[in-house]
């Protein structure tokens, strides 16, 4: 008869056996299952026992906010600059240095997952024949969202800057908008600490549009984005009647995000 041995001890010369379809065999099976399965479930649900922090991958939901602040340094003499932004108060401060460029942007979702993958940005700055662009500073504002663990909603910035000793006709930049994380993100909940505008566009004061103040306030934040383009291409040789062109492709890559584990 097929059966299971429930208990045996050689010193006592006793063996307890039961049939396969008995309650004792069922209890043995149940105990075996309970020995192995619940610890596995506990280990799975607690995301590991001893880890203090961990990482996950997520592609952020990034949308261009269509807010731009643009400064072009005009050379070669101890000249001035041209500026424009989508903030009316900033434009008002520029007086005769205001020059409105032609902008065209396009956001593209390449893999059809509902999240934008890159931004094509083109800016054409009309220039007088005597004006030459030797440097460009450009701030693009984005809304940046993460959903997988904690919901992070923030407004972030891409700062594009290039200066050249020779006047240029075109600047081509192509890079990633990377998340810069100085602290761990929460493992759950809603994080709207940084859902404030990077540039205070309603203020009439010049100090709120000073690039040093904007950058200083931005880098006080613990979670920021940074535009990294190791290879900007500065093209020279501009015809006198053509505009200065900035071509930028800003990609929104999948990010590795660190988060603390629940200390439960």
């Amino acid at each position: 008869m097929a059966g299971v041995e429930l208990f045996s001890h050689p010193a006592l010369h006793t063996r307890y056996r039961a049939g396969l379809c008995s309650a004792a065999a069922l209890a043995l099976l149940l105990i075996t299952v309970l020995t192995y399965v619940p610890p596995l479930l506990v280990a799975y649900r607690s995301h590991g026992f001893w880890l203090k922090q961990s990482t996950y991958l997520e592609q952020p939901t990034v949308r261009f906010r269509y807010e731009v602040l643009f400064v072009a340094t005009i050379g070669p003499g101890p000249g001035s600059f041209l500026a424009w932004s989508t903030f009316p108060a900033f434009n008002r401060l520029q007086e005769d240095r205001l020059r409105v460029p032609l902008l065209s942007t396009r956001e593209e979702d390449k893999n059809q997952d509902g999240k934008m993958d890159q931004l094509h940005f083109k800016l054409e700055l009309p220039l007088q024949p005597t004006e030459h662009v030797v440097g460009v500073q450009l701030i693009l504002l984005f809304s940046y969202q993460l959903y997988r663990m904690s919901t992070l909603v923030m407004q972030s910035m891409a700062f594009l800057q290039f200066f050249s000793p020779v006047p240029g006709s075109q600047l081509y930049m192509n890079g990633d908008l990377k998340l810069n994380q100085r602290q761990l993100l929460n493992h759950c909940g809603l994080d709207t600490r940084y859902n404030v505008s990077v540039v205070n566009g309603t203020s009439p004061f010049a100090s709120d549009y000073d690039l040093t103040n904007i950058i200083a306030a931005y880098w006080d934040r613990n979670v920021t984005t940074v535009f990294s383009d190791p290879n900007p291409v500065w093209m020279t040789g501009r015809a006198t009647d053509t505009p200065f062109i900035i071509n930028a492709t800003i990609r929104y890559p999948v990010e590795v995000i660190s988060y603390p584990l629940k200390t439960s």
Partner: protein
Amino acid sequence: MAAALLRRGVFFILVLLLPPLWAAEPSVESVPEPTASAAGSAVPPEIRAATRARTRSGPAPVTDVAKLCVCDLLVAQCDVNCCCDPDCNAADFSLFTTCSVPIVTGDSRLCSQKAAIYSLDVEANPPERIFKLIDQVNPSVFCIHATNYKQALSFSSPEMPTSENFDQLLKRFSSATFSAEPDSWNMNTDAQNPSDANETYRYEYGVPIQTADAFLRLPSPVVSSWCSDANPAGFLVNQATKCTRSVSVENCGNIQAVSMLFYINSSILAVPKSSQMVNITVQSIVVQSLNGMRTLLNGSDVLRLPMILDELCINIVLGVSYHITYTGAGEIIEAAASFVLGAINKEALSIQQSFEISFTQVNTKPVPLSGNPGYVVGLPIGAGFRPQGYPFPIEIFFVALVLVHLHKHFLAWTSIKRCKLRITAAMKCKPLTQTLLDLLKGQSFPEYVASFGNSQSQDVLDWVPITHFHTSEQSSCHIPVSLEIEVKWTKYGSLVNPQARIVNVTASITTTTLKQLPSRRERTIPITSSVVFTDISSPAEPGYKAWPTINAKLPFDFFFPFV
């Protein structure tokens, strides 16, 4: 057989998995389209069985791969290197070098998909196109063998906007755009909320100060160092700005921004939107010569306009300092401006202008503190003297908080200043020593330093004496060359709110021997002064200063029946 069974099993799993994968497209509230369930409930059972049999046989391709040709962009003309273009004939193909679209396939997740392969036979003469239509077999175990939901493999048709769902669709799909609204050049901040006509207006913190035409201008650098004149001054916002202005001697009379008139000609409104004007009065005029010497003009209330004088342009505004007096009700009652006027010569292309605005409440005399109680980083250190002949300690008082303006010692900013002194043989030792000491220590070097930012002159214990050290070489003439001030400070108070407190200040002067120089020889010696701030507080460390003890006593009747 087993493989077929396995594949059938896989199919069921996939059918279960597919709807969540594509859940984004068929939305619940979309316009009813002929979905499988709606069609199935309406048609007779035998037709339903037939449809099921057809769907099991594999999904029909949505687009015919043999006809799909993305490179065919010219109508009724042959596109170069486009092997699938039906307009091309054999003669055209003989000119091609490659096929720009070599393969057109269907959905790669299907187990079996049609593929149109285009290639060129370059061996043949003339080269000819080879077209093959094959069935590709997907080797993956998790391929789609059959599907009962065909829409899952193609884009769902979008919801048509109607008058009912337009707002909802707009909310769902709209995102940020470039604002095409014209700028509101009306700069009144409270124009947006129309309020009662009889409401009393007043200035609040940060509200731009209005003048008859626009705002009180406080030129300020924006994004570069050049001045922008459109920056308004905010009420109660003390500001100091410095910016660069391009000038030239030839047209210095025409540049508005270097003329005094530009800064005082508009009257300030006492409260916003009122007709009561406050004129800006000229409080003082300081004239700075070309080498930086400053003299205060007597009879200041005169307007001095820029003019050309001997290839110089004089009376150019180098600095403006506004002082606004206000009442507690937010009304400006007085506005005064102090000017620094200078001159430029032909070489100057640009000047630096500094602007300042400060606010004082009427009938008050604000005394600034450098911290309360501990010092704040970046603020000046209080220092002072003990007056001569004090009889009792209780009456000790210090000359008001004199700031050490020799260096402007700012807490925690270690700084060093250097200059060079050229010594000629004609210089005498004694006056030179005195001049250098005056240069290094200033006219009145303080004796005491306040240990806290808010130390009052009557609190004797709050004042730390400055210890002086002289390191000198024994010789007939030694001149001081460096002054080093070392400030030792510590963090004071609780760990949560540490306060900076100065505990010790030393001033050491190093001297060097001045040897008699031969006549008509020069020697240059560097003169250095430096301030060093040293934090001598010990860091907060975790641990037990006093170990915890067990304070447990047994009740007195613990051993009751026995003792």
